[in-house]
């Protein structure tokens, strides 16, 4: 029996969110019903937002909720609803494809797990982990500064070569803005209503 005082609550909530995220991700794979898959994916991505909060990335966690769970998944669910004829709601995968997928997935999983635990520096938690509080993380201002071209978090970079890379993210931010504009115009053009072509099924 574990004494209550011995429980590390950050680890406890990490395990909780990790199990929810992994469990529903597996449910997405093993479910055949596309409507259930969309729901499981929502829960999995929500739990991943919880993991972001636990890692101290509170702004990214909030964006995960707003953009992913609130935006991208709503798009996906619209796609499900627009194409959900009864014969497409539940499509069985052939057994041979499951075998191939299992071999591919198993090999990739073993590789990634071995790589993830191979480096001792990644294995060991911070020695002063107990004194750090995830709720103290305040990154929104620093992220706002970084996307406008000013890095406030690495002002004291000793290496002059590395300091050139500390000039912020203004250019990628602008490229992403234009990219989003082009993509959304293109997507609405692609998805416009047209006369439906009849194909013998």
């Amino acid at each position: 029996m574990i004494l209550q005082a011995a429980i590390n609550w950050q680890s406890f909530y990490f395990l909780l969110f990790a199990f929810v995220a992994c469990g529903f991700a597996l449910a997405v794979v093993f479910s055949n019903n596309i409507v259930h898959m969309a729901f499981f994916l929502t829960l999995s991505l929500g739990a991943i937002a919880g993991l972001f909060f636990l890692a101290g990335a509170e702004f990214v966690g909030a964006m995960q909720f707003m953009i992913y769970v609130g935006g991208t998944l709503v798009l996906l669910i619209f796609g499900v609803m627009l194409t959900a004829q009864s014969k497409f709601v539940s499509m069985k995968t052939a057994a041979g494809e499951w075998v191939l997928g299992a071999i591919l997935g198993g090999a990739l999983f073993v590789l990634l797990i071995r790589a993830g635990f191979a480096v001792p520096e990644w294995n060991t938690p911070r020695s002063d982990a107990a004194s750090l509080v995830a709720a103290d993380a305040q990154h929104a201002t620093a992220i706002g500064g970084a996307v406008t071209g000013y890095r406030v978090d690495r002002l004291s970079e000793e290496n002059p070569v590395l300091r050139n890379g500390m000039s912020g993210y203004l250019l990628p931010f602008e490229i992403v803005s234009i990219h989003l504009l082009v993509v959304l115009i293109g997507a609405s053009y692609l998805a416009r209503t047209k006369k439906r072509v009849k194909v013998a099924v």
Partner: protein
Amino acid sequence: MNLITEPISVSHYLAVGALLFVTGVVCMATKRNAIGVLMGVELVLNGANLNFVAFGSELLRATNLGLDGQLMAMFVIVLAAAEAAVALAIALNFYNNHSTIDVDRADDLRG
């Protein structure tokens, strides 16, 4: 059970990210529904995002990526939204033209 009493490290996050990545890849490989393949892509991107955030977290590692990890995760989230919009438009077009959403039937270009 020492998982619940010891503080977490980057490797814990990498393990979760690895599982999400693998489920996404298997989802992409096995699903016949085009929307299901899209869901696999979302899982893969989230697994990668989790690794970026874990390497950038000062709670898990003393020498971390800092803000770079979080900013990469933000860009991935935004690009994933754009990707989902375009891919969904393509899937809807495919559905309108072929009256099916089964990716196995998208073999018009076969020589």
